[in-house]
């Protein structure tokens, strides 16, 4: 990727040098389960890398357009899993899909290179986002497991990929995919992730693109690191100037013949179609006589964004303004459109449509502004990023954290153009796309860096370091914003905050977890012995006389679901008292940490006991309790707080989320 290494502070002299040293002496392997890999990408250049790690048991699986020599010392493994897909859809049509690890889609190459791509100078998409591209762990090795095909990703194939990746010896598993919300014992990513984490493998998954609706998360198991998406300080502006003098900004990655600099006639697709959904510029819906030589306003939705431009072009239109409707708000998605296009938010889109309706001869110009850096505020939580509360276990706060996931430039397949449309024959080495799919491999790569620096850390310790050092406010002290609302985001949106890898390197203290802790968690969920055995593969007897509490899972964040009093208890003033226990492990020097709590709701009392923890040696553990005392609030009320332990040098921060249901 370009920009995100700088945005994350990886290019600072000190951290760059430290991470490089740690990485070069380590042999961290990231397994990416996705659409496969395009091995010819420059991001898989293995110059300067030592031999393949001795521990590696993987292979480079030969198949259509994929040879053993497609792998090297960077891309050390590539396999494909198609049995489930073929059982459902019939034999793969090899004229359209490669029955091999080869990536015909681009998504898998994008995620793999984001996590661990080598350094490539002069990267860009048609000059946009130009710079030196690199993965987060640019010296880590990559193994690609192709489990997603044109018809989707099937659980039997995903499970086979996870099974093999663990056997092959990966250290980090990166999965930018998800299913519908289901219990952990029915979700193969959760089941496979449990076993992987039990074997010391860090499992990073995308939170999903179901935002901004609440409770829209996938991959919510506590042994998985769940990653939401935020913006960076980079935009690709396009400028719209209407005939009435009003100006709007949008975004675009268009590269091609420019529009005439003079004003051009403007038409709303809804007025240039007889179809009921003509406003969406679906195939064949526009009347050529009404759009010929004009810039057409198309509403977002239903068909692919870039395809709308082709529909406009086919009808004789010369450009497009792609307007968000209320489903998308003001979040802008930049695409490499095939005709001059600016994407605008709902507010601008509505004003442009109002202008068209009010003017007998509406006109406009569109100009393209290239790449703009230093955009503030940033990061901002992406509207699409899935949100908490955790729909499976409300007592575990998810997502865990956010990372860059909007307009990310990374490696791409040579099989399809940047829009993915069959008509797009442009060949690009890098593409710019958005999603929690893009934020997940950022965290996978950063976890690989931490694993390289601290090989003895467990997956839970790595996640704790990433979470407790994340930031949730800008430098001016204001909370990270949410694009969906334009207001401050909450821990249900950003989890513990935005990842800050340089700080995560030296967190001071971590909240560690073992397999037994996760099994106690399953007991606390009242899972039956057979449900637990599905996940843990061994006989577990939850003790009848032992109190198992989800609240006591040693998680680096707190979620406190509270019940609203009803009926005769509605006016009850008796507060709810909830106690959570946590254990901190010292991974730094001897130090004394003091607790501090900040809360936005004074009626909720938060008491930490003890207030001070002294650590005299590394690996020493200290336990504390937090007691939350809260009165009843109307259902739907939420409130947030933050607990910090600090020795003056480190800040070990945990978000706290209260929700009344």
């Amino acid at each position, binding site marked *: 990727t370009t920009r995100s290494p700088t945005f994350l502070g990886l290019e600072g002299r000190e951290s760059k040098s430290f991470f490089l040293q740690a990485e070069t002496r380590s042999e961290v392997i990231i397994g990416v389960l*996705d659409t496969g890999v395009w091995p010819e990408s420059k991001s898989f250049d293995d110059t300067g890398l030592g031999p393949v790690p001795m521990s590696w048991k993987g292979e480079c699986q030969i198949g259509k357009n994929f040879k053993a020599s497609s792998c090297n010392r960077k891309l050390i493994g590539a396999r494909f899993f198609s049995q489930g897909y073929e059982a459902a859809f019939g034999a793969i049509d090899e004229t359209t899909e490669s029955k091999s690890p080869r990536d015909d889609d681009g998504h898998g190459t994008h995620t793999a290179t984001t996590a661990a791509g080598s350094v490539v100078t002069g990267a860009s998409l048609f000059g946009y986002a130009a710079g030196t591209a690199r993965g987060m762990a640019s010296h880590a090795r990559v193994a690609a497991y192709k489990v997603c095909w044109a018809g989707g990703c099937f659980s039997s194939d995903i499970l086979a990929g996870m099974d093999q990746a663990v056997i092959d010896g990966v250290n980090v598993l990166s999965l930018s995919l998800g299913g519908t919300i289901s219990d952990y014992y029915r979700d193969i990513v959760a089941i496979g992730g449990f076993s992987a984490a039990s074997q010391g493998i860090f499992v990073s998954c995308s939170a999903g693109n179901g935002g901004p609706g609440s409770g829209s998360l996938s991959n919510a198991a506590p042994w998985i690191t769940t990653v939401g998406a935020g913006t960076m300080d980079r935009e690709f502006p396009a400028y719209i100037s209407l005939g009435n003098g009003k100006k709007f900004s949008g975004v675009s990655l268009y590269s091609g013949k420019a529009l005439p600099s003079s004003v051009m006639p403007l038409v709303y697709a809804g007025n240039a179609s007889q179809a009921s959904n003509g406003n969406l510029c679906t195939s064949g819906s526009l009347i050529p006589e009404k759009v010929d030589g004009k810039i057409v306003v198309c509403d977002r939705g239903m068909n692919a964004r870039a395809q709308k431009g082709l529909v406009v072009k086919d009808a004789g239109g010369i450009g497009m303004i792609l307007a968000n409707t209320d489903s998308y708000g003001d979040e802008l998605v930049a695409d490499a459109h095939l005709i001059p296009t600016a994407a605008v938010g709902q507010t601008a889109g509505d004003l442009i449509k109002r202008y068209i309706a009010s003017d007998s001869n509406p006109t406009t110009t569109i100009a393209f502004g290239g790449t703009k850096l230093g955009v503030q505020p940033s990061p901002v939580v992406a509207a699409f990023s899935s949100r908490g509360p955790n729909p499976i276990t409300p007592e575990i706060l998810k997502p865990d954290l956010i990372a860059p996931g909007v307009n990310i430039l990374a490696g791409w397949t040579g099989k399809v153009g940047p829009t993915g449309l069959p008509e797009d024959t442009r060949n690009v080495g890098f593409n710019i796309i958005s999603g929690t799919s893009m934020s997940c491999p950022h965290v996978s790569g950063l976890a690989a860096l931490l694993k390289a620096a601290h090989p003895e850390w467990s997956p839970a310790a790595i996640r704790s370091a990433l979470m407790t050092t994340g930031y949730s406010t800008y430098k001016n002290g204001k909370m990270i914003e949410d694009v969906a609302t334009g207001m401050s985001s909450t821990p249900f949106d950003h989890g513990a905050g935005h990842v800050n890898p340089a700080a995560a390197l030296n967190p001071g203290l971590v909240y560690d977890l073992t397999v037994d802790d996760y099994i106690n968690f399953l007991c606390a969920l009242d899972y039956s012995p057979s449900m637990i055995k599905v996940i843990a593969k061994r006989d577990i007897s939850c003790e009848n006389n032992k109190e198992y509490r989800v609240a006591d899972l040693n998680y680096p964040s707190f979620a406190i679901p509270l019940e609203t009093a009803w009926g005769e208890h509605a006016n009850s003033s008796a507060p709810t008292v909830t106690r959570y226990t946590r254990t901190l492990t010292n991974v730094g020097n001897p130090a004394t940490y003091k607790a501090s709590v900040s809360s936005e709701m004074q009626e909720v009392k938060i008491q930490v006991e003890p207030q001070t923890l002294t650590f005299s040696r590394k690996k020493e553990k200290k336990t504390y309790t937090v007691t939350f005392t809260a009165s009843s609030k109307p259902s739907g009320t939420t409130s947030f707080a933050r607990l910090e332990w600090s020795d003056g040098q480190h800040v070990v921060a945990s978000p706290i989320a209260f929700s009344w249901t």
Partner: protein
Amino acid sequence: GQNQKKTYIIYMDKSNIPADFDDHTLWYDSSLKSVSKGANMLYTYNNVIHGYSTQLTADEAKSLEQQPGILSVHEEVRYELH
């Protein structure tokens, strides 16, 4: 309908492998064949879970679930890229 085959993931209780089987895959296969003679395993899973995937009708899946040594039978789910 009832005869339409779908893919299922079968979770096996590997620690309770019958004494007359040396190899767990033979046990899996025998258990599968007891409900569907023509069925084949798509994958056997040996690390992250113990079990296999196969194509069965709904009735066969229900019948398999009752067999000894079967922990759970889950119908295949389609996941999406994010």
